[in-house]
């Protein structure tokens, strides 16, 4: 058995339900298939390669397409093309590839393309530490492509969530016509854990809204409904529609010199996420009801944080954990509410300080203690515990 092989029921779009043992990368690939993904374009990169390898094996079994592109720029472009041809599509990469994808992530945002991009984060900058975990790309995920936009990013902290949140990522992409990121890290990607695969029929699957009118030349591919999301026709249905990365009107036609078109379009692209933030932003709260100290952690750092919180409770310190499941849009309200009740917030992150700034902004006057971590190991629970104990003194 190779590192990537896992016994899946061959030729079935959804892996057999029940308790399974798999790696995060494989769970991510299976989650994508369960969500209806039938197209993967990618380029090999540690520590995300296993997602591609699993897709290369599974997709041809279920009439899907796996293609290894010449680079991550092309991968992202191909994903957008497949989505416009009506197929749920994804790619998976890590930091260096994520940087290359930024160009066409902007195109996906501008052309409102439902698609999923998985970034199994490693240490950067540049080639950095390919086999080591990192959480250094979370701000790049938010701001990495040029221009103004809002994005959705989910941060799995277990193999289970690699499955669940990948399904959710597709559902959100289809709901809001937006590229959605799964921001995992090397540990979550490579770790093998127990996963509970739900029954196929209990997996909620969302498909994009389609135009209800018969195909005519009058179809406006970027005319939004009240939820600010336009219904999406796909190529080959007879609508003869146009899409462009240029600023465009509701017909998809370029309006490169209109302040009004630019304002309307870019504000809507931002607002369709901002105004639905309550439906998108999600956190998990643990032992926060009576907490004096809160730890805000995500991804692999949240695992050590939970352990630290339990240890603190064991020695009589009222600590709790707030774990952002969506990093973008950032759950500012939830953090602010917790900040009003606690003496201090501890933020462990595998970087030099990224999400901590969002926490500080939401926490206002409440002190925020930052625990950076770079390199091979994630935070040790005791390092976080020390910080929690420091607050009490």
């Amino acid at each position, binding site marked *: 058995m190779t590192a990537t092989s896992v016994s899946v029921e061959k030729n079935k779009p959804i892996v057999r339900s029940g308790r399974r043992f798999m790696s995060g990368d494989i769970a991510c690939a299976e989650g994508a298939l369960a969500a209806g993904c039938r197209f993967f374009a990618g380029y090999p990169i540690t520590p995300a390669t296993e997602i591609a390898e699993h897709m290369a094996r599974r997709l041809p079994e279920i009439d899907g397409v796996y293609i290894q592109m010449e680079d991550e720029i092309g991968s992202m472009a191909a994903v957008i093309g497949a989505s416009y041809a009506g197929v749920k599509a994804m790619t998976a990469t890590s930091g260096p590839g994520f940087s290359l994808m930024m160009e066409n992530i902007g195109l996906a945002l501008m052309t409102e393309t439902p698609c999923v991009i998985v970034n199994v984060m490693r240490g950067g900058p540049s080639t950095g530490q390919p086999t080591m975990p990192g959480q250094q790309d979370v701000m790049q995920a938010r701001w990495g492509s040029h221009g103004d936009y809002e994005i959705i990013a989910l941060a799995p902290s277990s193999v289970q969530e690699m499955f669940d949140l990948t399904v959710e990522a597709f559902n959100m992409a289809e709901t809001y016509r937006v590229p959605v990121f799964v921001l995992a890290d090397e540990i979550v990607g490579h770790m093998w854990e127990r996963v509970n695969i739900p029954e196929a029929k209990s997996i909620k699957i969302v498909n994009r809204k389609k135009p209800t009118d018969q195909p005519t030349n009058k179809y406006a591919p970027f005319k939004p409904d009240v939820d600010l999301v336009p219904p999406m026709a796909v190529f080959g249905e007879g609508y003869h529609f146009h899409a*462009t990365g240029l600023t465009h009107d509701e017909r998809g036609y370029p309006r490169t010199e209109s302040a009004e078109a630019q304002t309307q379009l870019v504000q809507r692209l931002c607002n369709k996420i901002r105004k639905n933030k309550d439906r998108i932003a999600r956190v998990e709260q643990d032992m926060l009801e009576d907490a004096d100290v809160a730890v805000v952690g995500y991804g692999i750092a949240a695992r050590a944080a939970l352990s630290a919180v339990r240890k603190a409770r064991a020695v009589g310190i009222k600590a709790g954990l707030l774990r952002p499941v969506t990093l973008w849009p950032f759950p500012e309200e939830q953090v602010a509410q917790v900040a009003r009740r606690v003496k201090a917030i501890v933020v462990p992150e595998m970087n030099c300080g990224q999400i901590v700034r969002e926490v500080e902004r939401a926490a206002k006057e409440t002190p925020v203690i930052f625990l950076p971590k770079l390199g091979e190991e994630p935070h040790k629970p005791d390092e976080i515990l020390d910080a929690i104990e420091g607050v009490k003194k």
Partner: protein
Amino acid sequence: MEELPHPYEKFLRKDRIPHIWCEGCGNGIILNCFAMALDELNIDLNKVVVVSGIGCIGRVSGYTNTDSFHTTHGRPIAFATGVKLANPELKVVVISGDGDLFAIGGNHFIHAARRNLDIQVICANNFIYGMTGGQSGPTTPLDTWTTTTPYGNIEQAFNLVHLAAACGAIYVARWTTLHTRWLTESIKKALQKEGFSFIEVVSQCPEIFGRYNKMETAIKMMHWFKEASEVQHFSDPAKAEITPHRITVGEFIDIEKPSYGRLLREMKERVAEKK
């Protein structure tokens, strides 16, 4: 006076006309030949997708009355890869420029040709970056004056038909905008072939390339095409020159080879049989 409909009206988005191209530009001729080819083959326009990149000819996808997509700079072939593989029933045609396809997009071109992806690529080669005002590019001839080669171009130019042939394209042709009938026939042929086909159209940019290089009108540029062009079918693409004195045109490659789409389909069938 009663207005007569243009014979190729149904191929154009009338609400997008007038186009943005300069007077005398060769892009309109290429679009016209493409429309003629679609018309003569009686292709179902519902199944055609036109994909273009950035640059003057990049706007062509906005003018064709089919599904169409105007990608980021250099990426139309990569985008088209996703479209074609996701829905093999679609006829996916990339129409773009020399800078888009062979500078910033060069990697996608060589790999799509290598894979023998079932798409048609038509390149308007005007030797220059027109949209940004006349900078040198990968096909700018040696010694030419552009805004970024004010002392003359010292870079060698790509021979696009040689490149396409070397990368594995199954159909390769070069024409100029003067060769409208040949070009239309080539597009028709490419549309009917299975695999990666490439047509280079040497096109005039009188407004910028011509003006800087002593051919300031479309007529003067087309005189060059007329005087210099030499039809040499199936000659060695490595020797297919574009010089002030000779432009070698014609069909260079016309072979059969299983396309990526076919091999993918056959692989899936094998996988299904093994279950």
